């Protein structure tokens, strides 16, 4: 088994052993979304227009919240250092960790999103597009976030700093994803937005592991 597979399996196993923690970002996602009807208006028309943006902003924040666990425990027990020292390519190992993180933190958002869409009166036509945008968009969030976490993992109070570093870089994903969902609700084609999201995914998939690996090396030096 390759190093990639071993690390992926290990991280998934670790996540499974701490399954109570896994629910937290998900609960956060649901709660943030349910705050909006209380704060803005319970009227279906208002919520319908806001729904794509609300769901995506909440997904963004939930992703941000879960990012901290990406390298933290490995950094604290020293296994991250060992990974950097091995002869395996570090970007590949980073990719394995990000994939594991996305499977436990990103994928559940995708499953629960239609339910939230119903809560916010999102048109049924937009449900499937919502899931597609989350499928394409949340990996980008994890990949870009990995760079931010790698830069701040050595710091005692990295949490707030992380959001400052990462949120501006999330903006393109938010724009394309939310606009795709909103456009789908009106029945117009959304291929353009989806292509852009796919392009962002490809770009971050190819470049982010290298940037995150470089950042890890700096944080650990």
């Amino acid at each position: 088994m390759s190093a990639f597979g071993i690390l992926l399996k290990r991280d998934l196993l670790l996540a499974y052993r701490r399954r109570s923690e896994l629910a937290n970002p998900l609960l956060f996602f649901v709660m943030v979304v349910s705050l909006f009807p209380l704060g803005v208006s319970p009227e279906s028309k208002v919520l319908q227009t806001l729904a794509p943006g609300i769901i995506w902003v909440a997904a963004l924040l939930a992703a941000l919240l879960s990012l901290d666990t990406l390298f933290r425990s490995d950094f604290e027990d020293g296994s991250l250092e060992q990974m950097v020292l091995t002869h395996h390519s570090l970007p590949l190992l980073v990719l394995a960790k990000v994939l594991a993180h996305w499977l436990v933190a990103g994928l559940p958002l995708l499953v629960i999103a239609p339910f939230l869409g119903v809560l916010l009166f999102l048109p049924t036509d937009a449900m499937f597009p919502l899931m597609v945008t989350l499928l394409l968009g949340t990996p980008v969030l994890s990949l870009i976030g990995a760079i931010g976490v790698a830069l701040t993992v050595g710091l005692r109070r990295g949490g707030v700093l992380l959001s400052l570093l990462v949120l501006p870089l999330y903006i393109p994903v938010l724009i394309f994803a939310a606009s795709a969902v909103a456009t789908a609700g009106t029945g117009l084609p959304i291929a353009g937005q989806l292509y852009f999201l796919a392009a962002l995914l490809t770009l971050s998939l190819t470049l982010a592991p290298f940037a995150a690996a470089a950042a890890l090396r700096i944080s650990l030096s």
Partner: protein
Amino acid sequence: MWAFLQKFSSPKYFYSLAGQMIPWLGAICGLLFIAGLYYGLFVAPPDYQQGESYRIMFIHVPAAWMSMFVYVVIALMGAIGLIWKIKLADIIAASSAPLGASFTFIALVTGSLWGKPMWGTWWVWDGRLTSELILLFLYFGIIALNVAIEDKRNAARASAVLALVGVVNIPIIHYSVQWWNTLHQGATVSKIGAPSIHISMLIPLLLMAFAFKFYYATVLLIRARAEVLERERNSSWVMELVK
């Protein structure tokens, strides 16, 4: 050339050379500011549509140009610092970040002051305004990361990675924001068109642009000198200097 660069990048030589350059750069900057402001405020004719209030452009546009220029400088210096491990590049990048942020801030504030009488509102979610605001956030990120990491060398390398990631992202952010804007509200606001600007307005604008460049160079060198002293405080030449 290489020998000169190598010599220039040694902190000690840089410190003394920068000290000699600062008065000259500052003087040129002052002259350019006086000339540019005089031409811009008194000589250039009022705009046929906007009257006198367009004159804020002579601050706004150079500041906006500098806001992007400085970010590129930071990314470039970051790359140089990462690849060739030149200390001076780290110092220049670190000293540039607050300057870039202040240029961005000036561009946003002057734009907003101009927007109130012209567009009737302080703020519009226009593509350009929004991407300038995001640029300000990126600057804050770099500054915050630089401050948060105690070891100066690591702080510089981490900020360099962040600046390079930002440079890849800036065009994406810029175009996505413009695209988002056109999708949502169409061309309700068209900014000063790029094409024809009269020569009588172009001259003060260029003078001001150069004044801003020289201001940046002057203040950058002053800040970098202070930074050099702080980082090299344990070396013999600094001890001798401050004795």
